[in-house]
């Protein structure tokens, strides 16, 4: 019997099994992919690791652990919600690190003596207000989500370590200003880094959500081979669909692994406009504007939709719909098959990806892993939230009028920065999908510095105006850099207009 015959027979058995199961009314979640180790995934999800080291933590954070939305870190009652959590994979039981994960306080070059060490019982036990508590929370949270991703079958890139600074140095003059950064160091050298900022009554470093969210950025870069799903954003674009997808996956991973469907209730207490207990973002249905694609993607002259979190939250709801469908098919295991399908789709995203790419990738991953039986629900998750099933091509290109102008955004004094002030108009009767402009140097002479910017969808008859009085600031335009010693005259600058439903157009400007 030849190998080919065997392969065909195997496929026949798969198909017959699929048809058989569907005809029996049982839904199938693994006809194409390898079986998952559900026991292992459940153990990780419920943080039941086996290891010799433990930490005393309140997970995921005091607010969610207690249900008391008014709780603050210094309230004495917080300690009563502490549990013992395993710290798997430590290289050395005295230090919170392994070959990949390195937990620090303020800087990569922290003195090792300043870092958390276990007590005489071998437990990392600190009050929640002690920054060393943040170190233990970081290690526990990140090793949990890392294990989960690997248990789903994804090999992540550990060729460079991930340093986590739970109270990073270099903060503003306001030590209470909360922020978090993920640095992938995209130019193929240096470690990966997570830096958490801000010390408040609801510090980010006390919350598991922030670690899981930031790690989500690493996972997306890792499973995509660092091909730059948001390269334009990495290089300085204010908004791109790729950046929204980055936030979408980082949120979804947190929301799905916790099973709560929301992110950042503890953290949100630091920001105005959030009621106590209100999450930062939500993946399940809400009566708000993030339900509908048009509300978050249509270009608005105020720039409100040039915000990766708005489109990202919409996107996380699409993914949550898909998860909900798989969970409805299989209450116990559906969530794991959903996460595997969604992460597999992520691994296929192209450079400078888009929502359309994401939809195509989800359909492909479902085809490969689940024999495509969710194709209808995947499509419905998009269309029911306003993403057009089909977009008709524009009958004519967008009209562009632009002028090269100097800016004060030069990053160094030996360089001159220039930008493009422009008006971009859609005189078609159809919406232009995912409008972007890019600056190109066909003959050299300057460096495209902020090389591409995106503006969402531009409705019929609508205009994007960047630069000038009453328009969006030049921060939303592209930037080129040229040496002050170079004669600008004769340098050719191309402005390329990109849309998804029509051909690209190129406009030439001679400096």
């Amino acid at each position: 019997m030849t190998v080919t015959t065997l392969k065909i027979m195997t496929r026949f058995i798969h198909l017959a099994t699929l048809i058989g199961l569907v005809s029996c009314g049982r839904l199938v979640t693994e006809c194409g992919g390898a079986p998952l180790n559900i026991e292992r995934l459940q153990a990780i999800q419920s943080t039941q690791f086996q290891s010799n080291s433990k930490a005393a933590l309140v997970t995921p954070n005091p607010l969610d652990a207690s249900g008391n939305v008014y709780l603050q870190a210094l309230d004495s009652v917080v300690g009563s919600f502490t549990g013992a959590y395993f710290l798997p994979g430590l290289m050395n039981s005295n230090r919170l690190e392994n070959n990949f994960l390195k937990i620090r306080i303020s800087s990569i070059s922290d003195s090792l003596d300043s870092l958390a060490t276990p007590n005489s019982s071998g437990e990392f036990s600190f009050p929640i207000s002690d920054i060393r508590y943040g170190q233990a929370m970081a290690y526990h949270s990140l090793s949990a989500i890392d294990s989960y991703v690997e248990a789903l079958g994804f090999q992540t890139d550990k060729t460079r370590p991930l340093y986590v600074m739970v109270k990073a140095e270099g903060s503003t003059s306001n030590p209470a200003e909360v922020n978090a950064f993920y640095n992938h160091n995209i130019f193929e050298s240096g470690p990966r880094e997570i830096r958490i900022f801000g010390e408040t009554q609801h510090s980010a470093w006390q919350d598991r959500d922030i670690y899981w969210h930031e790690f989500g950025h690493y996972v997306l870069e890792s499973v995509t081979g660092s091909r730059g799903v948001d390269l334009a954003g990495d290089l300085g674009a204010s908004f791109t669909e790729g950046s929204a997808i980055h936030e979408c996956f980082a949120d979804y991973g947190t929301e799905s692994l916790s099973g709560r469907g929301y992110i950042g209730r503890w953290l949100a207490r630091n920001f105005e406009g959030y009621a106590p207990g209100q999450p930062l973002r939500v993946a399940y249905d809400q009566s708000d504007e993030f339900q509908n694609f048009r509300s978050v993607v249509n270009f608005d002259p105020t720039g409100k939709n040039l915000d990766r979190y708005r489109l990202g939250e919409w996107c996380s709801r699409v993914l949550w719909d898909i998860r909900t469908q798989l969970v409805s098919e299989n209450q116990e295991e559906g969530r794991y098959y959903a996460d595997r399908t969604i992460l597999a789709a992520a691994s296929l995203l192209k450079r400078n990806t888009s929502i359309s790419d994401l939809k195509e990738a989800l359909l492909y991953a479902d085809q490969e892993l689940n024999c495509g039986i969710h194709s209808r629900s995947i499509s419905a998750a998009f269309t029911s939230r306003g993403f057009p099933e089909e977009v008709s091509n524009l009958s004519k290109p967008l009209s562009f009028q632009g002028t090269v102008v100097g800016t004060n955004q030069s990053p160094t004094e030996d360089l001159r920065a220039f930008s493009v002030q422009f008006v971009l108009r859609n005189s078609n009767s159809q919406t232009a999908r995912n409008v972007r402009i890019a600056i190109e140097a066909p003959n050299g002479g300057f460096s495209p510095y902020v090389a591409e910017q995106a503006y969402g969808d531009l409705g019929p008859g609508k205009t994007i105006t960047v630069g000038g009085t009453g328009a969006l600031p030049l921060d939303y335009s592209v930037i080129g850099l040229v040496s002050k010693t170079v004669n600008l005259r004769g340098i050719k600058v191309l402005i390329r207009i990109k849309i998804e439903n029509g051909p690209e157009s190129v406009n030439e400007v001679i400096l």
Partner: protein
Amino acid sequence: MRNSTARHLLLIVLILGALVFFREEKSNLPFKELRELEAKIKWKSQPTETQMTTDYNLKTSFENDLSEKAISSANQFILNNPKLFSIQKHHQLAVKTSSNPLGTHVSYQVYQDGFAILGMNIDLIVNRVGLVRLVSNQYRPIDRIKVDQANWLTVPEIFQDQTIKFKLSSERSEEEKDNVAIWISPNSSQPELVYVVSVVDTQQKQKVPGQALFSVITGQLIARHFPRSEFNEKPL
């Protein structure tokens, strides 16, 4: 009625089986061509596996033979699509793989004279039955860049002339100090030899190190990577 349904199902299965058979056959290519490809492309490194952590009770290694088969299929794919991958003589490829439920991701990094060309990668996925899907191809033919170290500035020389807007990150590691690469912007046809340097932008609110590329010849800033920041739009 039941017999008729069964016959229809059998027919569907047979048709699908035939389709799978022909798809697979198409990807089986002669080994001779693979050898030619291997001769044509000077491999910068042997196939490598991404290292796993000291794992948390998980399998700690991946099956090498699967990676090798995937690399072999990916090589064949490159060979059979010369219009897509017109790899120039002065370029070399290094390959690495990572496993994934969809199959094996095979990623190629392009080099010239030992210097990585940043932003020029080829990513393929080889599924469980050896079929290749092109995920991303950033390769494009570019001129060989001159590598004459006599004309290079050093990083300290470059930073002597920088204004206070950028300073070298105090967290730069030893290995990073002479990290030279070739940068080809997605929006330019002119490659540049650059230092990859960790810098801090002193004008940022929060001083987060990021990477910047400086020309080894002129010392000028060429490109910069912005770390991914949360909460920019939502101040306290």
